[in-house]
């Protein structure tokens, strides 16, 4: 995994990012990802802070996470054709994103990946 690393200590010194702005080589942005429902079991994580390459898109990030967490995680998030399943709500900064909004992540983004639940 080249573009994704867990943040160990301190921030990368990035100053923020906006979709479409190019970044200098070696810079990274920091995001947090929270997992819910069955995704917690598949990842073993609840919340993680990650350093990622600037201009990483949400599908790009999820593909990298799938490479880290394995086939069951990938099958949960993606169809066999590689499309993100519509039944997995993706939340960024407290707003649900529609598929056409799956653009680049910004520095400090807070991503929630929900699992569909119907238990009572």
């Amino acid at each position, binding site marked *: 995994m080249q573009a994704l690393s867990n943040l160990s200590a301190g921030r990368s010194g990035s100053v923020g990012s906006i979709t479409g702005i190019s970044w200098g080589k070696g810079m990274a942005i920091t995001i947090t990802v*929270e997992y*819910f*429902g*069955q995704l917690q079991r598949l990842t073993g994580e*609840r*919340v993680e802070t990650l350093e990622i390459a600037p201009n990483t898109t949400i599908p790009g990030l999820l593909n990298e996470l799938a490479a880290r967490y394995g086939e069951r995680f990938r099958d*949960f998030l993606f169809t066999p054709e590689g499309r993100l*399943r*519509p*039944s*997995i*709500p993706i*939340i960024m900064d*407290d*707003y*649900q*994103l*529609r598929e056409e*909004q799956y653009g680049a992540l910004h520095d400090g983004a807070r991503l*929630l990946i*929900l*699992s*569909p*639940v*119907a*238990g*009572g």
Partner: protein
Amino acid sequence: MQIHRQPLNDTERATYEWQMWVPGVGEEGQEKLKGATVMISRLGGLGGVVAYELAAAGVGRFILAHGGNVKLSDLNRQLLMTYDWVGKPRIDSVARRLRELNPFAEIVAVPEQVHEGNAADLVGQADLVIDCAPLFSERFAMNREAVRQDKPLIECAMYELEAQITTIIPGQTPCLNCLYPEDPPAWQREFPVFGAVSGTVGCLAAMEAIKLITGIGTPLAGTLLVMDLREMRFHKVAIARNPACPVCGD
């Protein structure tokens, strides 16, 4: 939502005195609760608590749908079921327990789950619908009818130590199909559950219903409250409307 107020008698004034002290409720709000008809799909760990709280609060009429017989594995969370009722119809236990609490409420007990064939009739009898079903097929049927009939729908659900709740106001907010556009293939009918989690979101759903009926406070309209009770993480999330939604889209 137009609720026809029903006047209170002296017993009801005495019973609900303390909650009528809540600012914005008063006798008028209590009369709205008495005049309201609430439909609840499934009366298990979640829906049973919703019904119990609303019966305690003085809701006047219930349409309650739940099939099957009481099993031992129901009893860790389904507070309207009891050991002496194992093997007997769940809906009868529900009606019995609610009448013990509020003998003045009218209870229409339907001994079946919600499905495409009965959703229109069940939703049509209610002012407000609360969905606590464990299958997305049942939830989608309720959502479709609530939107079609312009009835508010409270969607609440749980899994393990987590829960989600939102309030759908047709014509104003996204609907369940906007949040979940397809039946999630990974959802399983049997799920890990503590009754305290079901009960937590059940109480929140009852509070949403009380707010919608009486007009107090701000409901979770268009907002999904996501809860992780293991770590006490709470998020309020704005749900995105899907303009192409086959249920509520343009």
